[in-house]
């Protein structure tokens, strides 16, 4: 059974595309057939983060509109042969995303892939709603910062109301988890940044992982390499841990490479 996972946040610039690239590469590294789709129509960027921007021929919208077959639009990753990217259009707008079109493409992808990662655009407009509509699970990317947490709360509300699972009678609701990115322990220690516990207390959803603020993230995007495929770093291992939890493994929560099991696991029972 394949799983559709949306990576969303409401707020822009919190790390959705970085996370989509890292999670999909991490899943593929573990042997799962994975595809990552860019839903940000008109502002294509996943291709750059994945490093395949020079190879885009056809896109998601071409497939929806019947101008190209899915296999012509899928870009196979050169580093991992079970990873593929479905780029979006750089020239169209979000109205080109029809619900029927998105559903048809997702259904076809389910035949080949174990995991379908939907990289949502920022905002809560059509592109973001289409990215989450057919999801089975959601990764809500949040920075420990007021506007990001507020927007995450809004998005969590939409996940529970404006999606297929929310509308379908008797369906399990979307399983939503928070991924905290740009976590800076030094600033938390100084009382400048909200703690993980603060954020979780407000959002009241389970925690998928904590990604530390790390120079490795900018480096990876400069190079067009998902952070988990680049040189080892605290951010890469935090993403690897998040991927392990995503596939159901019990992995202790770490903060910036440092183990702090007592606090978080006791409070939220995540590593029982």
């Amino acid at each position: 059974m394949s799983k559709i996972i949306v990576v969303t946040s409401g707020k822009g610039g919190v790390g959705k595309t970085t996370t989509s690239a890292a999670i999909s590469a991490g899943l593929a590294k573990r042997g799962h057939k994975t595809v990552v789709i860019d839903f940000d129509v008109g502002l294509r960027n996943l291709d750059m983060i994945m490093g395949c921007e020079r190879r885009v021929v056809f896109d998601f919208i071409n497939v929806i509109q019947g101008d190209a077959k899915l296999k012509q639009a899928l870009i196979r990753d050169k580093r991992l042969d079970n990873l593929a990217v479905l780029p979006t259009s750089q020239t169209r707008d979000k109205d080109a995303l029809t619900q029927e079109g998105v559903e048809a493409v997702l259904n076809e992808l389910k035949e080949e892939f174990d995991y379908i990662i939907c990289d949502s655009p920022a905002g809560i407009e059509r592109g973001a709603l289409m990215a989450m509509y057919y999801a089975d699970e959601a990764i809500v990317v949040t920075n420990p910062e007021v506007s990001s947490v507020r927007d995450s709360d809004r998005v969590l509300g939409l996940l529970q109301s404006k999606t297929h699972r929310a509308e379908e009678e008797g369906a399990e609701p979307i399983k939503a988890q928070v991924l905290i990115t740009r976590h800076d322990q030094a600033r938390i220690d100084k009382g400048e940044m909200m703690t993980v516990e603060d954020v979780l207390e407000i959002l009241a959803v389970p925690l998928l992982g904590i990604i530390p603020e790390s120079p490795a993230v900018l480096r990876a995007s400069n190079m067009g390499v998902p952070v988990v495929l680049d040189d080892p770093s605290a951010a890469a291992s935090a993403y690897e841990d998040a991927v392990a939890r995503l596939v159901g493994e019990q992995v202790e929560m770490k903060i910036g490479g440092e183990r702090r099991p007592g606090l978080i696991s006791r409070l939220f029972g995540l590593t029982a």
Partner: protein
Amino acid sequence: MFGFSLKPRKPNAAQTAKDRLQILLAHERSGASPDCLPELQRDILEAIRKHMKIDRDAIDIKMERGEGLSSLEINIEFPADQRKA
């Protein structure tokens, strides 16, 4: 003069980022948009279909955008018994 050449610049991450952007944006700004590709694909298929029977899905177009030069690779598959027909 020597002052510059003695220290060859190491291709660091920032330089790689800039190079990648320059190549990509040169293509995007030139308006050689990939929007013409569906049409190109249709035209190629039509031209070939005048001479042999091929499937609508039998065409595979690959592109590699480079610095100053891009390549378009077009693969068309057709059944082996075409020539007899």
